[in-house]
């Protein structure tokens, strides 16, 4: 269960959010909406423990989320603007590294199949199209076996088939009791899972 309590963050002199609180039981999704610059990505980063809020805390099952991450109790998958793929090596090599760190070295081929990258898996990532890179990043998310997914504008650069793949993945994850936090412009079909909507940037 993901919970944020009394989160406040300023960026320079703008107050992005103040006293923000939410509770997300397993199997539900938090949808963060708002115009550009409202702080959607920043809130995701606060949840991920990358950015520190001025005040407030983010907890997982009652304990501080960052310490849960560091002790390995919780695994987090962050699907953001940056793909975290090294352009100089192949998609397969990139995924093998992450698979090894996640303790799942055998699943790389399966996920390359699932994301439709089997054909171009051995090409250097710099030779792939933007859509293919995003699919590879999605494969990384699927590899991680994480309980909490943080998705920042996940549909960017995905074609129709890619978006369908994403939606199915998210719905399956939610169906299995996982938690998802999404920052999005476009509507993402989250199936029948309970959704909590958060609107940023309205004053």
């Amino acid at each position: 269960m993901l919970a944020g309590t009394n989160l406040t963050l300023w960026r320079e002199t703008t107050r992005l959010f103040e006293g923000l609180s939410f509770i997300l039981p397993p199997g539900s999704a938090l949808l963060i909406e708002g115009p550009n610059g409202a702080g959607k990505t920043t809130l995701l980063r606060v949840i991920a423990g990358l950015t520190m809020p001025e005040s407030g805390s983010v907890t997982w099952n009652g304990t501080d989320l960052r310490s849960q991450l560091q002790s390995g109790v919780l695994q987090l998958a962050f699907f953001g603007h940056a793909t975290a793929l090294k352009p100089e090596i192949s998609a397969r090599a990139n995924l093998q590294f992450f698979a090894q760190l996640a303790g799942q070295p055998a699943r790389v081929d399966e996920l390359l199949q699932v994301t439709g990258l089997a054909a171009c898996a051995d090409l250097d990532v710099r030779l792939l199209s933007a859509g293919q890179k995003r699919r590879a990043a999605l494969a990384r998310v699927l590899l991680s076996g994480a309980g909490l997914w943080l998705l920042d504008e996940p549909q960017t650069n995905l074609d129709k088939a890619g978006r369908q793949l994403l939606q199915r993945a998210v719905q399956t994850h939610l169906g299995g009791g996982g938690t998802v936090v999404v920052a999005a412009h476009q509507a993402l079909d989250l199936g029948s899972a309970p959704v909590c909507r958060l609107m940023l940037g309205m004053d």
Partner: protein
Amino acid sequence: MSVTPSSPAQQAPAATLGLMTLFAAVLKRDLHVGMRRWTDASNSALFFILVLALFPLALSPKAEVLRMIAPGVIWIAALLATLLSLHLLFRADLEDGTLEQLLMLPYPLGWILLAKTLAHWIITGIPVVVMAPILAVTYHLPASALTVLTFSLLLGTPTLSLLGSIGAALTAGLRSASVLLAFIVGPLMLPVLMLGARATDLALAGEDPTGPLYLLGALLMLAVSVVPFMAAAAIRVSAD
């Protein structure tokens, strides 16, 4: 296409890697990527050669002069070459999001950064250590001094890379950080420079160089134990 979840999404702790396997995995990948970006790596080696070519041209090609300045000059060239290559250490990883992914893993960040710094040293430092004795011949250094020079560089350049990694971590997110990096990290590197040059000087004079060499080793041990914590803290700041 169907998507199967890898494990119950309400998860049990996944198998995590042992520290040595983690170290090897990060090292292997960084070496792999680094080899592909060999133009970056060769920059520091070429710079090393360039600096060593400048001194005879600017001062004097006479053997006595060159022999006298060789220990200091070669060490300065090694230090400058290290400074030049440092800004690359974490920048790419920060920019393409790899660093963030590593930050969210349940592994000690300092250990990961140590593996990265080692990979960086292997790619940029070892060429310097290998070329130094060859170029030192052009400075008329005798064989006894050559061995000590090489050994001092072998002990000293990893320390330079480690100290530099703190600066690289602090400036990873900044634009045009090279000069600032040199300024931040330069003073920290001075003891290594002085000890390395001194050891070679002693060998040149026919005296016993082991004192400074032991101290270089001690500094390396100190750096390996302390730097990873500082670099990890610095990376967290840069990734904010």
